[in-house]
């Protein structure tokens, strides 16, 4: 994410309220944009379809299909996203820009084939829906998988206005298409989704191709043994599984779920609050990106330039203290902003739910989910710091713990009854953040020893 820090710093350097606001808007857009905008768009599509696509169960089937598409595509590509991000930044560091695009083409080819093959097998064996539905689901699945990989490049792009335009355009196409195709029922909505995501995918690809020169059409350097960080693949997989495992538990527990379409099950009770809750992380994510990518990244660079540049140990330690301060302030600021958001959401939640036509029975679950996703922002910030410090082992440990705890505590919460729903997710994240903070403390304490004696 080297590019974004630089750009954000440039905007912040203008030192005015509007500039600062712009920096945070961009950061929010880039960090949570595709994810949050997707949720909003899909919900909007649901609203648009109401009354046109009948019976209403079809809309629910559509929403659940989309949820599964999101979950499965993110889980499948999570590891690759992490791994390919690292691959790209390594190439940029080596100043081998020309090998980036061919490898992107290579990895997209691979993902398309794997996702297509896997989707084909699953759809052929587990589903008995009409051919058109299955074909559209397959197309959507492959498109999403590719899109998640292309989105890595967002933070490296310099033309932020362009990102804004592309995103607006993509989601506008999706909604407009849904409006026009809704008479086709479920297939029309799926087609709109496909059109929107495909538009995003190809517009971003177009920008990337324009920005990165290439010496070959396609390359598979990223598959070279020595360049593969297996741990990154596993980390990404576990992280995304961790995010979704509590949902799967609820979906496949007969008590909390019902069958919606084909083998897909959903939990009316559990799903809606958590997806709504995710809208509340936008402020936190924006702060996270700005703080980590500007302040922290800047001090981090200074520390390691001092290490390489032959500075005195005392000076290196002083810079490290500044870096620690930047981390502390960053985390604190995320907590402040996210805390404020939390208070607002708590205050407004009853009206919000009433406005959305949701029962107030959802309120407790919604509250705990908002707390959970807020902690998730802190968790992501921590993981990012660990990635900067090249503590892949710690990230893997935390993600594994998160997956395990979320699974175990969610199962336990179902045992304990409805008033504990959502606690599995939130408590497991809280545990991971506490442990992560503890580890970070140790890592930062030992930074010099670790850097010089074990990694130098």
């Amino acid at each position: 994410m080297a590019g974004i820090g630089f750009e954000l710093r440039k905007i912040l350097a203008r030192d005015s309220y509007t500039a600062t606001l712009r920096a945070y808007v961009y950061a929010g857009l880039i960090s949570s944009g595709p994810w949050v905008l997707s949720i909003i768009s899909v919900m909007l599509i649901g609203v648009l379809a109401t009354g046109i696509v009948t019976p209403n169960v079809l809309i629910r089937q559509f929403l659940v299909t989309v949820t599964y598409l999101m979950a499965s595509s993110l889980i499948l590509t999570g590891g690759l996203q992490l791994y390919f991000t690292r691959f790209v930044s390594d190439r940029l560091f080596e100043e081998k820009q020309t090998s980036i695009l061919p490898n992107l083409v290579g990895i997209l080819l691979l993902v398309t084939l794997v996702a297509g093959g896997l989707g084909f097998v699953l759809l052929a064996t587990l589903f008995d829906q009409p051919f058109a539905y299955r074909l559209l689901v397959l197309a959507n699945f492959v498109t999403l998988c590719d899109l998640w990989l292309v989105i890595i490049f967002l933070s490296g792009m310099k033309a932020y206005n362009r990102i804004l335009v592309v995103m607006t355009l993509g989601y506008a196409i999706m909604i407009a298409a849904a409006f026009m195709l809704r008479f086709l029922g479920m297939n029309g909505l799926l087609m709109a989704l496909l059109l929107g995501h495909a538009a995003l995918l190809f517009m971003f690809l177009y920008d990337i191709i324009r920005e990165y020169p290439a010496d070959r059409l396609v390359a598979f350097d990223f598959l070279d043994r020595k360049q593969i960080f297996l741990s990154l693949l596993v980390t990404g997989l576990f992280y995304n599984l961790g995010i979704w495992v509590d949902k799967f538990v609820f979906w496949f527990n007969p008590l909390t779920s019902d069958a919606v379409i084909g083998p897909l099950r959903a939990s009316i009770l559990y799903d809606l609050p958590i997806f709504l809750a995710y809208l509340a992380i936008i402020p936190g994510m924006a702060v996270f990106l700005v703080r980590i990518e500007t302040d922290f990244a800047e001090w981090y660079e200074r520390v390691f330039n001092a290490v390489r540049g032959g500075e005195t140990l005392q000076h290196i330690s002083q810079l490290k203290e500044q870096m620690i301060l930047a981390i502390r302030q960053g985390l604190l600021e995320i907590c402040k902003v996210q805390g404020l958001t939390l208070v607002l959401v708590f205050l407004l939640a009853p009206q919000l739910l009433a406005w959305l036509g949701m029962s107030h029975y959802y309120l407790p679950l919604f509250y705990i989910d908002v707390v959970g996703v807020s902690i998730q922002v802190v968790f992501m910030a921590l993981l990012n710091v660990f990635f900067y410090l090249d503590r892949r082992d710690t990230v893997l440990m935390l993600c594994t713990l998160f997956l395990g705890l979320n699974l175990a505590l969610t199962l336990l919460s179902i045992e304990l009854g409805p008033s504990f729903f959502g606690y599995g997710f939130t408590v497991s994240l809280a545990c991971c953040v506490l442990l992560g903070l503890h580890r970070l403390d140790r890592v930062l304490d030992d930074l010099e020893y670790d850097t010089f004696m074990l990694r130098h």
Partner: protein
Amino acid sequence: MKDAPAATVTPDVCLLLEGTWPYVRGGVSSWVNQLILGLPELTFSVFFIGGQRENYEKRHYAIPPNVVHIEEHFLAGSWVPKGAPISPRRQAPVQLLRDLHAFLHHPDEPSAAQGDALVDAFAQGSVTLDDFMYSRASWEAITEGYERYCTDPSFVDYLWTLRAMQAPLLMLAEAARRLPRPRMIHSISTGYAGMLGAILQRRWGCNFLLSEHGIYTKERKIDLAQAKWIAEGPDEALRTGLDVDVSYIRRLWIRFFERIGLLTYKAADPIISLYDGNRRRQIQDGADPARCRVIPNGISLTQWQDALERRPEGVPPVVGLLGRVVPIKDVKTFIRAMRGVISAMPEAEAWVVGPEDEDEEYAAECHSLVTSLGLEGKVKFLGFQKIGDILPKLGLMVLTSISEAQPLVILEGWAAGVPVVSSDVGSCRELIEGSIPEDRALGTGGSVVAIADPQATARAILALLRNPGRWQAAQRTGLARVNRYYTEPLMLERYRELYQDAIGRSL
């Protein structure tokens, strides 16, 4: 790394060789070769220490049958971390690591007991390479030394310097654990080989003999003074050459070699040098005078018998400099001296006998000096020649070197009946004028003049060439001296005695 099968017989002598035999041609290597071949009744094991493997690809000497074991170890790379160990596998010895640093790197003069404890730790293997490279205790010892003493800013440089010093020592100490146990140890230098000798002596409890040709520590100091790889701070370039202003990294290296040299001197008995000047130097560097002895190099006289017999009557008016055309031989002073000689004695000629390809720029300067002094046709560059063919044609041999230890060429000249005029370097004065009283009583085998003094050199040359009586006396003295003190059998006999004594004491 082992080459010969593990010794089935106990080797009599374990030779510790740093950067010499059998890989490098040169004075020390041919001496080692002479020693091994000359004492066929003894068996040897060889532990060779090199810098980088790439620099030692070809052996220049055949391995004699009495070398029963040979292994080689290379220092380069031992200080490169092999990737972080997963977890601290053992508790590193905190105090020991601190003592190790204090002894090797800190400016305060260490005590003998500290050195003793250090050798013990190495011998018992209570400090490992991993302890030094990765342990927290080692980190604390390093940072403590850096914060208290280091005056250079760069911590990275300090760390790598320490690694480049200590890691080879620990690597060697660990590698030598698998070495077959000999009856005694013989190291041919201080430095890493000498330090290893001290460690192995402690481990095996046998006798440790040290022979030094040059003075290792002094040579390292000269290397370090010229080393370009040590980064010069911007201030350092502006400073004068005062010792306190030398970069701390340079001082660390010098201190390190001094300290391991000291440990070697404390352990070795006897300590052999080639001539008295070096013996005094060893004592000055911390060697016990009671243990120091001089054993000069020896040459095989039969080899030069023929050259002596082929000598024509009288004194050929030819002056020869036998050596490579390089600055250290100061060929220019020789040429300038010949200007004076030829002015006074027009029939005289000068021959420069030796390869010119090592420093072509310097060789070209020498040629143009000959032209500018109008000595064309009088000073001839003969290139590489067989010395045996040249010596009978020379009336005098001249050595103008600015640095020598014990030049064999002087002994060879004498053996072939040629008196020598030499600059006053290394053992040259001892050789030409004699060292002990009965040696001095033999007279002088030529003349000794100050270095870089063409006038004095010319006067000394003329005095011998134009005075047959003096010349004949010098020839007689040279022949007698080389026969009495500097023969190969004599050198071998002395070492045979030392070996037998050391092995006997070990039993």
